[in-house]
């Protein structure tokens, strides 16, 4: 296969991962902010606990995503990588 073939093959994977993590997580974060605002209630309105719970859950997912990124950076520094073979990420040798 030529370089162009390899590049296009890598490119769509990067695009897919980028869309899920790079656009998906920020959108969850934005949803979290929306829930937080909803939870606090508007002018004079009662606070809504459900909004806060929702916000907490969404932020937790985002934090997990960031931790995954951090783990990858640290692991690759030690010559390891993260395997997604079993869906759940695991640290393995490169």
């Amino acid at each position: 296969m030529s370089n162009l073939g390899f590049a296009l093959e890598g490119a769509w994977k990067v695009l897919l991962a980028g869309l899920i993590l790079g656009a998906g997580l920020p959108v969850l974060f934005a949803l979290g902010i929306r829930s937080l605002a909803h939870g606090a209630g508007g002018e004079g309105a009662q606070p809504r606990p459900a909004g806060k719970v929702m916000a907490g859950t969404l932020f937790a997912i985002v934090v997990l995503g960031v931790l995954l990124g951090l783990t990858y950076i640290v692991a690759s520094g030690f010559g390891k990588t993260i395997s997604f073979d079993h869906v759940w990420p695991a640290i393995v040798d490169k």
Partner: protein
Amino acid sequence: MILVLVVVTALGFDFTNGFHDTANAMATSIATRALRPKVAVALSGILNLIGAFLSVEVALTVSNAVVRIQNADGTPKESLTSDGGTALLLIVLAGLIGGIVWNLLTWLLGLPSSSSHALFGGLVGATIAGLGWAGVNWNGNGSKLDGVVGKVILPALISPVIAGVVAAVGTWLIYKVTVGVAARFTENGFRWGQIGSASLVSLAHGTNDAQKTMGVITLALIASGEWTDTKSIPFWVKAACALAIALGTYLGGWRIIRTLGKGLVEIAPPQGMAAESASAAVILASSHLGFALSTTHVATGSILGSGVGRPGAQVRWRVAGRMAATWLITLPAAAMVGALMWYLGDFVGGVAGAIVIFALLLVAAGGMWLRSRLAPVDHTNVNDEWDEPAAAAERVPAGATH
């Protein structure tokens, strides 16, 4: 003697690498005032330092992607070390000088360009001059993405587009989601989102880019017989590289920060977060998949994308076009400087040749620094309003550099 010059020059390159790339992580946070400029560069510098120390793995074969001066296990080619390593050291020295000169010139013009491509360009030029066209790994061997085409040209064309699409989609969705939400929630929330995502980019930069210089210095040490282990690098090399890149980052390439943060698009906090998240995700995903790309190209693509994705935002395509043109000529331009330096060093010969080209580097660097003083950009005016004519007046003739 030549070895000392190579080490000093490599650290110099690492330093320019740092201040050239501060903008990639921090331009958005500075432009949206999520962080004060000084705090932003300090944070980025510290994260680069940590990142550089985190990279335990040896990137000794970094030059193999583009030139053939090393064996597959990282040891230098025997034909280049028969004379005590001088042949190899001269190629590396000339290549590094090519990279630094290009980094400084683009900094003077306030243009973000890839430091890795500048280094690769310098090495390619010096190798063509020293070993001929066959010394360059143009296309790899067809088994994986490799060579000048596979590691430099194709990723340079593809990565800004990927990052731009991701950031545009992210920005568009974020604005959809937060429409009508009170500013007191969005302001603070996106501020933290931006700082977090920009920090990830800084850390990833430290692990990736400092490693390249460590690899180059270790290669030079092996070539001159000062080091033999291809599986580890001397601690002082790691510490020096980490410090050089962190200091460079802290110094901040304010000109480039200004172009990226103010020149391309006016960035609002949600866009900043979308852009940096897109950068972090694309950089990490591609490095996971072995798809070499430049942090600079990704960050620029992301910021551009965040402008496209925000309804009603103005994108200065002229500035974007100038950047794209810079990327196209980065490799050949750095290669020309690298080749010229090699011919000159080889013409004078031996240690004297290395000293002459090193002195030329100092003159060029000093000249460009003095030129930059005429229209200084620093942490006090980095966020001033962007007006096109002033930026255009900063141009200097390319001939003034060597």
